[in-house]
């Protein structure tokens, strides 16, 4: 094969190989993430301002149930929480934790992070997966506004 043909093939293959590699680097670790337990969390929607009730005592929070299988969040009332048997965590019964993180992806970690992928992740060991249902409007969620109430047993 001519030298020029080899460079042509490398030139065409290089971007394709790059896309395949970064896809594998990003998607492979998340495949090993398979949490089973849903969890209840609260978000302080008003960020810095706590809402108090008429007695000026209780802090009102919005509660959500995170459906781990469908990666969706559903708003629930505080009275409904008592219906569930909860493990306060912070780790789930099968060893997963939810935390705010930065998107340092594998080989690109040495080159810096991707700030617009910051958000909440569920992780176990080194593998982790972004919680899509918890990050729909990231700009309203910041590190600290999230509070895990418990894992539903």
């Amino acid at each position: 094969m001519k030298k020029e043909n080899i460079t042509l093939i490398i030139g065409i293959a290089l971007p394709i190989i790059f896309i395949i590699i970064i896809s594998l680097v990003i998607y492979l670790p998340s495949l090993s993430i398979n949490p089973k337990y849903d969890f209840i969390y609260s978000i302080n929607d008003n960020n810095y301002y706590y809402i108090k009730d008429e007695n000026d005592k209780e802090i009102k929070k919005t509660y959500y149930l995170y459906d781990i299988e469908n990666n969706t969040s559903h708003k629930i009332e505080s009275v409904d929480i008592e219906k569930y048997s909860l493990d306060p965590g912070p780790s789930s019964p099968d060893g997963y934790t939810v935390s705010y993180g930065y998107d340092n992806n594998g080989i690109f970690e040495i080159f810096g992070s991707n700030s617009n992928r910051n958000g909440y992740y569920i992780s176990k060991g080194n593998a982790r997966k972004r919680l899509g249902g918890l990050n729909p409007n990231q700009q309203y969620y910041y590190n600290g506004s999230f509070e895990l109430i418990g894992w539903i047993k």
Partner: protein
Amino acid sequence: MEKQQIISFIKEQILSGKISNSDLIGITNNGGGEINSTEESKVPNNNSRNLTNIFYVIGVAIAIIGVIILIAQNWDEIGFAGRILVTLGIGLVTYITALLIKGSEHRVLSQSMFTISAILSPMGIFVLLNEYNINIDININIILSIGLAIVYGFALYMSKRNILSIFTIAFSTWAYYAFIAKIFDIGYLYGTDIIKWATMLIGLAYILIAYGYYSNNDIPDKADKKEKVAIKNILYSLGTIAILGAGISVGGFFDIIFIAIIFAAFYASIFLKNSSMIIIAGIFLISHILKLTSKYFLDSIGWPIALIISGFIVMGVGYLTYYINKRFIKETSL
């Protein structure tokens, strides 16, 4: 005189410039008749061909501008059918027409048609999606760009028109960035690190494709060769700009590695005998020196000294670029 002697004699005459390749072709075409080597008879023919080609190119520009103005001014009046007709309709008709014009005498006309088609077809598809209220998200971007790359890649394979390699590469590049945006769940406009690395890589791919595709062709047709060289130079320039432009914005420890990359570009320009590459490398070397001076040495040596040193370095780089270009690229490529 033996056959071998005749061939050797003809070779000598060609090398000495007394006869040209076209004279030989003239002899074979005329069956040994009168040699059709009079330059005077060719000049008007070439001139009229060039004039026709210029008209084709001007025609393309006018047609595209006309369509854009027509759509912009009469968006509501021409209706859905009108909008589709002037974009996707013309795009489709010009694409098919260009594919059907196979003769080498229609090279410029068919490439003009392909140009109109390649600009209007994506516009038409966007108009169509807009009419059906389909959100042009990243998945649509991926499907569209791959589809267009296949359509124009097929036309390139069938017709071998050089302009199509530019369109195929352009649509493939669109697909490449759309894939990266999809994988990383990011918008095109975010200046994230991954986009910088991806841009450097696509720049390298451009240079390799240009070297591979346009260096291995024995091209008998002068006009075809001229087009191939032009496209090769465009890809070399775009590749160099992509690598150096993205590289200079990375920063940090990469600032040191980037110096080596710039000198690699200087070396590559000599190896590939490409003037535009060395000029781009020179501009980026000057920019990088100014960047490093302002970033690391400004506090220690102060503005005036930094300016004086930078000024001399810029002059030095300018002369180095000129010297390398003259000594190693222009002379050797003659």
